[in-house]
C-alpha cells in the first residue's frame, strides 16, 4: 500500500504544526498508510484525544498526534465527526497497541464509538455511570443528577468490581493460580480474602 490514500480533506499548518483533516471513513486507511509507507513511517502514536467545540455547528474532532521517531517529524491527524450522526470511527488498536486505553478514554469522555476496539468500556468513570459523557459541551459541569443521587450511586458501587482479569494481567497466569484464588476470581471477588 504505497498509493497516497483518498480521504484527506485538508492539509494545513497551525503554529508550526502540520495538520491534516481526514474523513471518518478513510481515517484508518490514512493512518495505516502514514505508519507503513517508507518516507512517512509515523511509528509512534503520541496521543489520541478528541475536541468538542462550543459552537454546536462545528463537528466533534478525534485527534491523533503521530510522531516518526527516527525522522523526528510530527503530524496531527484530525477526524471530524458530524454530531447529528452516531459518533463512530474505526479503532487503531491493531496499528498502535497504546491506543487501547486512549480510545477507551475518548469513548468514556466523549461517547465516540471505536469500531473494532477489543474492549471498549469506560475507563475513568465507573461502568454503571449513567449521566453520559462528561467532556461533551452539552454536559452540565455539575452533571445531570442531583448531588444526593450522585452520592447514592457512588456509594452503591462495588469498588472491587472495576478490574477485569485482563487489567490485572492475570489472564495468562490464570491456570497456574491456586484453586481458591481461581474460584474467587471466577466469582467476581477481588482484593480480599473471604
Amino acid at each position, binding site marked *: 500500500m504505497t498509493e497516497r490514500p483518498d480521504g484527506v480533506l485538508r492539509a494545513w499548518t497551525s503554529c508550526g504544526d502540520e495538520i491534516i483533516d481526514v474523513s471518518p471513513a478513510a481515517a484508518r486507511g490514512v493512518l495505516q498508510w502514514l505508519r507503513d509507507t517508507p518516507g512517512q513511517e509515523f511509528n509512534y502514536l503520541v496521543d489520541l484525544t478528541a475536541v468538542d467545540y462550543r459552537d454546536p455547528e462545528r463537528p466533534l474532532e478525534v485527534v491523533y498526534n503521530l510522531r516518526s521517531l527516527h525522522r523526528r517529524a510530527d503530524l496531527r491527524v484530525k477526524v471530524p465527526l458530524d454530531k447529528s450522526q452516531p459518533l463512530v470511527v474505526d479503532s487503531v488498536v491493531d496499528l498502535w497497541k497504546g491506543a487501547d486505553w486512549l480510545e477507551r478514554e475518548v469513548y468514556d469522555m466523549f461517547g465516540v464509538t471505536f469500531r473494532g476496539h477489543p474492549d471498549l468500556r469506560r475507563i475513568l468513570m465507573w461502568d454503571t455511570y449513567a449521566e453520559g459523557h462528561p467532556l461533551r459541551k452539552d*454536559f452540565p459541569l455539575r452533571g445531570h443528577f442531583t*448531588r444526593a443521587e450522585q452520592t447514592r450511586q457512588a456509594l452503591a458501587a462495588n469498588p472491587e468490581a472495576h478490574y477485569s482479569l485482563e487489567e490485572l494481567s492475570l489472564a495468562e497466569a490464570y491456570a497456574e493460580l491456586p484453586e481458591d484464588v481461581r474460584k474467587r476470581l471466577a466469582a467476581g471477588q477481588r482484593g480480599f480474602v473471604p
Partner: protein
Amino acid sequence: MELTRPPEESSPPPAEIAGVSPNFITTKLDFLVNWARSNSLWPMPFGTACCAIEFMATAAGRFDLARFGMERMSFSPRQADVFICAGRVPFKLAPVLRRIWDQMPQPKWCISMGACASSGGIFDTYSMVQGIDTVVPVDVYVPGCPPRPEGLIYGIMLLQKKIKGETLADSSLRQEYLLDERGLFLPPDKIDEISEPFGNSVHQTRSA
C-alpha cells in the same frame, strides 16, 4: 458485607454505665478515659492530594505529630482512632472512603483536612464529592488550601478538646451512622443542601 442501619430496638446501650446520670465515679472515669484517648490518637491517613503533602510534613520531624500521641500512622483502619481525609475525594473513591470508615472500630473520629475534603473546594464538578460530610460524619474541619501543618495541629488539638468533653454516659457519641436503605447516611435533601454551590462557583457554569 451488607451494611445497613440496625433496627432501633436491637441496639442496647453499649455499656452498663450508659443512661446513668453523671456522678462522682463516672465523671472521674470520664476524665481518665478521655485523657487516655485524646493523648493516644492513632490516625488513619487518607491522603488523596496536596493536603497529604502537608500532612506528611506535619508527621515529620519539624512539626512532629508524635508530640500529640500520634506517633503511629495506622495504615490499617482496624487499629485506627482518627480518620484524617487529606485531599479531594472523587465520587469513584467515595465507596472506598465509606468502607474504611465502616471498618474502623469505635471510638473513632474524623478530621476533614483542607477545602476540598470539607466542601469540594474549587472542584464543583460532576466527579467530585462536595464535602466528605455527605459520605461520613465529620468531627473537625480544617480550612486551608492546603492547610499549613500548624493548621492541622490546631485541628487535632480541637479534636482533643472535644474528646476531653465527652462522657461515657452519652451513648449517642458512639453511634454508628451507617448507610440506610436509601444507601445514604443523611437525608437526600440534606446532601443537596450541603452540596449547594457557594462563592465564585455559583457563576462558573457556562454550559447548561
